[in-house]
């Protein structure tokens, strides 16, 4: 790509007005002040020729390529995708034409040329079991690759729940010893963009923020950008009024489900899930899981695979009554034992009772 972004966009038929609108939307979505939209537009529009585009290296580890799928699906023709033209995606196994040694060369060339300045995106978890033998690229374990590439990175974006929290590979019993990026890298700024997969806009939003301000956006204590992960699905859900009225769908095809009532009883994890699905939605704002009739799985939360069942209501406990009979039996035995003990004490006291006579008192 030659020339500044605004020229490239113009060539692709995107007007200046559309571009400004896009920046303003991104800024408002991230709860930045109105002036930030302009700042973003300026920063991105003045992103000069290809040589100066910030380099981005994307490392895939134990992943399913769903995160990459998610990003590409939003690609053309939406504007989010064009953000990729602002950056120089120097290494992305799925998307790059090169393979084998060529790909490795591209990676090392990018690392060398942009030492200390490139942005590292990771998707997938890192296996620690068997010295990392569970997942290797170019003869190197994921752990080695991550440490090597992270060394020269300006910041790291952990894309998807696997990179952010370990995700599916880390699900009980975690056979590969999978861990998250933050478990391995301690000395670099890391932003987690969890989700299975994450929302494309969230990723482009974080990138835009990084390009504009040269820093990562404000993060919550799990390292997620607050702008997108600040509120629960439940709080922003359009079905929330039904929850408050106590109107719940009981099965996926009953009257309540058809009327669009709350999916809480069907296992929706919306109340404990922080993500932007309810507001940003998916597929260019078409719909999102709850709108399509399925409860939230809680995919942007740590260990959501082991959260106790996708179709179990949040208020529904695992199975506390499984031990009820035993507990009652133990209680009965203890009660009877204590009763006998008390009776024993009583009769002991009775038999130890000495009658006091007048003669005793006069002694």
């Amino acid at each position, binding site marked *: 790509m030659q020339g500044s972004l605004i020229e490239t966009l113009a060539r692709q038929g995107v007007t200046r007005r559309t571009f400004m609108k896009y920046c303003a939307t991104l800024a408002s979505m991230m709860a930045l002040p109105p002036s930030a939209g302009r700042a973003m537009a300026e920063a991105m529009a003045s992103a000069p020729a290809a040589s100066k585009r910030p380099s981005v290296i994307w490392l895939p580890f134990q992943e399913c390529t769903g995160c990459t799928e998610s990003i590409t699906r939003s690609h053309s023709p939406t504007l989010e995708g064009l953000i990729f033209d602002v950056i120089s995606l120097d290494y992305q196994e799925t998307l790059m034409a090169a393979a084998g040694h060529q790909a490795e060369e591209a990676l090392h060339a990018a690392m060398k040329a942009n030492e200390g300045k490139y942005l590292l995106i990771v998707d997938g978890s890192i296996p620690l079991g068997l010295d990392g033998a569970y997942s290797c690229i170019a003869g190197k374990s994921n752990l080695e690759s991550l440490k090597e590439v992270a060394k020269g990175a300006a910041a790291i974006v952990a894309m998807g729940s696997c990179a952010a929290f370990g995700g599916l590979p880390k699900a009980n019993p975690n056979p590969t010893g999978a861990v998250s990026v933050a478990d391995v890298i301690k000395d670099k700024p890391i932003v987690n963009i969890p989700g299975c997969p994450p929302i494309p806009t969230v990723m482009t939003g974080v990138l835009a923020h990084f390009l504009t301000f040269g820093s990562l956006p404000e993060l919550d204590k799990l390292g997620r950008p607050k702008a997108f992960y600040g509120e629960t699905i439940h709080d922003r859900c359009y079905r929330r009024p039904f929850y408050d009225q106590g109107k719940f769908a009981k099965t996926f095809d009953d009257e309540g489900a058809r009327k669009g009532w709350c999916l809480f009883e069907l296992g929706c994890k919306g109340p*404990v899930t922080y993500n932007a699905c309810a507001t940003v939605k998916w597929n260019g704002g078409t719909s999102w899981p709850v709108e399509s009739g399925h409860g939230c799985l809680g995919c942007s939360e740590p*260990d959501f695979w082991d959260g106790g069942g996708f179709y179990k209501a949040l208020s529904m*406990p695992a199975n*506390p009554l499984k031990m009820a009979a035993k507990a009652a039996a133990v209680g009965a035995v203890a009660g009877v034992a*204590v009763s006998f003990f008390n009776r024993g004490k009583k009769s002991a006291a009775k038999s130890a009772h000495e009658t006091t006579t007048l003669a005793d008192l006069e002694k």
Partner: protein
Amino acid sequence: MNEIQLLTWVRGSGLDIAVSIFLMGVIWRLFEIYSLGRKKDLSASRCVAGASGWHTIFRRSLPPQGMVKKSPVSYIGGYTFHIGLAIVVFLFAPHILLIRNLTGLSWPGLPSQFVDLAAVVTMAAMVVVLADRINKPVKRYLSTFGDWFTWTVTFLPVLTGWLAVRHLLLPYTTMLAVHILCVEVLLVVLPFTKLFHAFTLFGSRWFNGQVNGHKGVAV
């Protein structure tokens, strides 16, 4: 342990343990208390007409004449928070759902806004009765650690539940976990503290009524 893990634990193993201890404790204590028995009253019965035991169960739910005026906080505050607790515990939709999932029994709930109001009123009443207990010298003198402790373990589930619903203080997930944890503490200590009156209340009233009836006290 992150908050989802904490929530999973309190909903899983934590609740298993708490419910088991609760059931065990309740059955143990009921056996223990009712097996103590009473000495046979050898005196001739001056039995007054009527089922004095059953009458007393009902009558002790009503304040004796003039007592509401004399001790308004105890009666009004006490009624308010007991009824409020019943509403919050048994008529809040997620709670009914929990009971239905455990036992198969269910009944219609109240709108969450109303339950929210009931929770606030309950907490206010509980704070007032606590303040009264601290302020009145006699009540304070009669209070032991058991009273302060049981007040706290009763108050905390209401407070944390309300904070969770209102999304105050802590993130919802954490607050929900803390709420369930508080309920579990309540379940565990209930059989072994003064809170056991929830089970023994009517039995003791019946006993008292029966004994009084035997002695010829009008019911």
